[in-house]
């Protein structure tokens, strides 16, 4: 074998190592029997995995993250589905501008979005922390919702709506009877993508979290500043496997990757 023919396999291995390596290290570290977060792990135990479930603040912040991920994504879809529909079906003036503005949070760093929300919305209008987080997560997920839903709408011919109307349905009725059922896969995919994005979101939440109200990732950072034990690694592993499970199921049943 020449060096040349080894080049591609080696590059591939390196890429995989860089992508998967850190994850494997975290997973290994969560089974450590030692007192501090370390790699290679000292011994083997499930004590840190068990501990995750006993930390009170983790349970509260997990609840908060779950609420934001589900509620924020649902709200983003409620706004995003009609918006995508209007963008794809009507030749609106400035539709391109709207598309760009809506997708801005994908491009703009989270830190800036968080700061802007804090400085110009939360502080001046005295918005409560939970509401602020909810609004922020909705705004963050919205671009993904619009993108994914738009993609599945663009795959759907608009003449089926006209066919439905000519068979006696109203325009709105046609939307619910023939458009929604045909973009269900796209909506589910948008939901999962939005959920994962929201759940893993750090910078914006960091800015907006306040006393007693935190999302799980922010809480993990705070925890690590005080206690440096492997329970954070254990929690990360659990979350990673949860995400992988969700995406796997989504891909299996919805053809998730078609829309993303």
């Amino acid at each position, binding site marked *: 074998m020449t060096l040349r023919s080894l080049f591609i396999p080696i590059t591939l291995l390196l890429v995989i190592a860089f992508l998967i390596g850190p994850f494997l290290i975290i997973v290994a570290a969560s089974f450590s029997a030692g007192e501090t977060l370390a790699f290679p792990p000292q011994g083997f135990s499930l004590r840190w995995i068990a501990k995750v479930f006993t930390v009170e603040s983790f349970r509260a912040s997990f609840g908060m993250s779950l609420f934001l991920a589900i509620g924020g994504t649902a709200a983003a879809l409620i706004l995003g589905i009609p918006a995508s529909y209007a963008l794809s079906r009507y030749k609106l003036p400035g539709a391109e501008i709207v598309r760009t503005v809506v997708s801005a949070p994908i491009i703009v760093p989270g830190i800036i979005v968080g700061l802007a929300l804090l400085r110009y919305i939360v502080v001046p209008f005295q918005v409560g922390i939970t509401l602020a987080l909810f609004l922020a997560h909705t705004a963050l997920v919205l671009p993904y919702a619009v993108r994914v839903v738009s993609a599945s709408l663009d795959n759907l*011919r608009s*003449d*089926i709506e*006209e*066919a*439905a*109307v*000519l*068979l*006696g*349905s*109203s325009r709105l*009725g046609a939307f619910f*009877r*023939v458009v929604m*059922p*045909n973009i269900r896969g796209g909506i589910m995919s948008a939901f999962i993508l939005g959920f994962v994005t929201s759940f893993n979101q750090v910078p914006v939440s960091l800015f907006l979290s306040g006393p007693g109200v935190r999302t799980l990732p922010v809480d993990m950072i705070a925890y690590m500043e005080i206690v440096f034990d492997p329970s954070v690694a254990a929690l990360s592993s659990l979350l990673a496997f949860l995400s992988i499970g969700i995406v796997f199921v989504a891909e299996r049943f919805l053809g998730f990757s078609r829309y993303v």
Partner: protein
Amino acid sequence: MSDASYLSLEKLTLAYGDSVAVANLDLNIRKGELIALLGPSGCGKTTTMRAIAGLLAVKSGHVRLDGADITRVPANKRAVGLMFQSYALFPHLSVYENVAFGLKLKGMRGPELETKVQSGLKSVGLSTFANRKPAELSGGQQQRVALARSMVMEPKVLLLDEPLSNLDARLRLEMRTELQRVQKETGVTMIFVTHDQAEALALADRIVVMKSGKIEQIGSPEDIYNRPTSSFVADFVGFENIFPLENGKMKTSAGLIDLSGKPPSAAGLAWRPRMVSLGTGPFQGTVRGTSFAGDSREYLLDTSLGPIKAEVEASQPAHALGADLFFDLPPEKAAPLLRFV
């Protein structure tokens, strides 16, 4: 409402924004008639159909159907069916559910619905396909589902926008017969759009030829085929030798030519290639091209009148390229054109 105007378009003007696509269109259609809308791409056929269906707002003028002015009636309350070129079946519903869609919206339920849908499917020969999804059907079968879906609604008018253009030649012929049969059995008034003059001639009771948003000629297939009234229609239905008349004389590149026995007061004359007699005659030309079409042979002649196309039986002896031939344009065979455009 008189019998002759079951569906009538009166001074219908349709526009996209400021650009007018159809201007001042007048058309009266009898109940049970099968009308073909024929014309080149972009002449406004689809636009007219969409306005009749209510999918496009009318700019001015009126659409009347069965005695009522439906110009402002929304599309879902018109009892007008439309078959799309793409079929527009609902991909998430089975064949059965596709056909039942409109009936359910009418509030039909239970055994009545079942009977109606089954008989609709039976009439297009798809009873055994009721549980399939549209994606599991061939193009011709999808077309039949679309037809059944429209027909079970018992529309007053069924519009078909190039219904056969997505099918291969054999299926086309089959669907053509199918459409004719359904029309005869139900007596539904039908308007179908086509690019294909053979299709229009074969199917229609009357043909409407359109050109840039206006009607150029309306007539029976025989009228359109044999007696086109304008140079545009003549050209469209295959008269390839067309000359304007000036002061009663034929205007050619060789100057004005007086044809004896020509019909009076026409604006032009047109001959099909088959109407040109080759071999004898007052004119002369050189063979520039020839093509063989099975039972006939076509020649392109270079003549002092300009290029002339002639067609003769293939059993006649063939002429070689470059041969000089005499020919005649018999005036009594020519179609007199009232308008030269």
